[in-house]
């Protein structure tokens, strides 16, 4: 039996997630692992927007903010389980992406970047200033999802970080599976045709505006889920989750790893989430070093770290 590229990518991802803990010296690394997987989920969404459809967004953390605060606020005000907060956040983000996507996606290049940037900053400002609802810049606590309690009930004996690592592993595999499926579907082919040339795609009968919007909404849902999950993991959320820097981190991860492939972007998320932990000693120089790494990769490996390394590997073989 011959496996498709999609299946290989998923198997590789599953094996890496399953085997990585063997190299973890302490359970702190599970926490970093869980964060990598959460960022991995967000950048998988960005691959659909950047890599498939060829659009840019500098404001996706805005959707993470909506997801994060939905997970925090909905259980408090409606008295429901936090999982409904997560779902409601995703629906809200999708709706908002649909509304703003129509006008915003008419813009191209820099203009699109600036418009999405503005959206992210707006969400950040609202979360910061509506202090009576969101707790303002000090943030607010988030009800537990109950994963730890579930694991204890099953007698697995895992701590919070470990539970979340395995849970996020499963979530990311599902997210990656859906994104990879989309790639080879008719919708995915239409999206990729936009990436190459909108005019050509249009003349071939692809509804350009609709497909751009589809990609935007899907990626917003991924970002929203990542925001909710991060809030639930921490049991706490601050407006930083919707901050400009958070958007930029995601874009950097996606582009560094390789915006065209899901695995590449997740690889980028892993590198850029783990690196600051390795660089804590050089905290003052962290941004400088990240910038330097980014520049070197962009100059010498314009397709991104992952595709370039994969190519090199094939050549050596």
């Amino acid at each position: 039996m011959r496996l498709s590229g999609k299946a290989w990518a998923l198997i590789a991802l599953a094996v890496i997630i399953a085997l990585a803990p063997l190299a973890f010296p302490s359970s702190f690394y599970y926490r970093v692992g869980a964060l990598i997987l959460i960022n991995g989920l967000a950048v998988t969404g960005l691959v659909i927007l950047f890599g498939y459809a060829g659009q840019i967004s500098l404001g996706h953390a805005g959707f993470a903010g909506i997801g994060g605060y939905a997970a925090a606020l909905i259980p408090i005000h409606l008295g429901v389980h936090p999982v409904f907060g997560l779902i409601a956040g995703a629906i809200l983000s999708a709706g908002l992406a649909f509304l703003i996507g129509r006008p915003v996606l008419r813009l191209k290049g820099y203009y699109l970047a600036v418009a999405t940037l503005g959206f992210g900053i707006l969400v950040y400002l609202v979360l910061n200033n509506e202090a009576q609802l969101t707790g303002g810049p000090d943030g607010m606590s988030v009800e537990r999802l109950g994963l730890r309690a579930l694991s204890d009930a099953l007698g697995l004996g895992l701590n919070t970080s470990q539970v979340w690592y395995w849970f996020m592993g499963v979530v990311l595999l599902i997210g990656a599976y859906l994104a990879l499926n989309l790639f080879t579907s008719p919708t995915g082919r239409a999206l990729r045709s936009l990436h190459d040339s909108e005019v050509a795609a249009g003349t071939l009968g692809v509804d350009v505006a609709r497909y751009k919007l589809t990609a935007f909404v899907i990626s917003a849902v991924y970002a929203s889920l990542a925001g909710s999950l991060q809030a639930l993991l921490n049991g706490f959320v601050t407006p930083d989750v919707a901050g400009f820097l958070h958007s930029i981190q995601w874009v950097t991860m996606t582009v560094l790893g390789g915006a065209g492939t899901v695995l590449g972007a997740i690889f980028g998320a892993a590198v850029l989430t783990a690196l600051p932990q390795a660089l804590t000693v050089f905290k003052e120089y962290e941004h400088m070093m990240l910038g330097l790494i980014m520049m070197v990769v962009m100059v010498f490996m314009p397709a991104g770290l992952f595709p370039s390394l994969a190519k090199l590997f094939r050549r050596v073989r």
Partner: protein
Amino acid sequence: MRLFSKTVVAGGLLLLAADPALAEIRIGSVLSVTGPASFLGDPELKTLEMLVEEVNAAGGINGEEIALIHYDDGGDANQARTLATRLVEDDEVIAVIGGSTTGVTLAVAPVFEEAGIPFISLAGAVSIINPVNPWVFKTPHTDRMACEKIFTDLNARGLSQIGLISGQGGFGSSMREQCLDVAGDFGIEVLADETYAPRDSDMTPQLTSIAATDGIEAVVNPGFGQGPAIVTRNFAQLGIELPLYQSHGVASDAFIELAGESANGVRLPGSATLIVDLLAEDDPQHDVVTAYRDAFEGHFDEPVSTFGGYAHDAFWIMVSAIETAGSTDGEAIRQAIEATTGWVGVTGEFNMSPEDHMGLDLSAFRMLEIVDGDWTLVE
């Protein structure tokens, strides 16, 4: 019989292992040394490093040296949470000092609570210790206390109708809420309630509106950064002849420099660190504040700050608690911190209890007035 003795030996060994002997004492810290809150984190870290050096040079705690394991969170709560997990799981610290801001403190506190590690925060808000979390303590005064101090002074001057002009940042909005909340207890009426954004460069409209409100007798400005300095300048430019109160958030020489001439006559609640030379010889805080100022300024060649003082107090409370506990057992240290009473620090006199994990009262604040560009103590 052999089985029995083996069991006894094994049990004894287990007991030995369960009682953690004092080895190197690992104290962790997470502070915002870079980023928007670096003006807090920087003097805090410097103070901690200076004091660790001092204690180790004097032979450590009960003969064991302190190892300070520090991480910088850059003011980001998510990052702080990761670093807190790292301190607990990877570095296996026995106690933690840190959390420069309220947001960071509230984000990391559950990590230490879950692991049973005593944690002393250096952040302001009352929500850190109310409701009481058995594992979480704090040394700075709260913004609520600052409001109470200001209102007490207003009462003494026979003033009761005020206008509020607050910054929209975390500090300003939190203090505004606390002031509105306690105003009633002091018979204070808030007749005007204006705000400004952290980067606004002109507050004349808000001040004009406050000054035009009937019956206003004083103006209070919760906020920090450059906003309060601009408010003070505009206040003087408009020629408003009312008492102006600033908060402890601008209790530093930098404020006088920024506000210049117009700072004269402004009152604010501040800590003893600001007025070291004005303290009476017999003031209970005189010796500790002088010693800290001299040590800090001798070490770093920069003026001492209120914020470093928070770290100073947290460190000594932690060290004496570890000394009293005589072990690195979290519960023993926690109880020793909780039993801190009558200890005079740079910030004030600490009287902790199971219900009060800060232990300061209003005497920790001094009402200061700026006269001729310098601090004076209001009696």
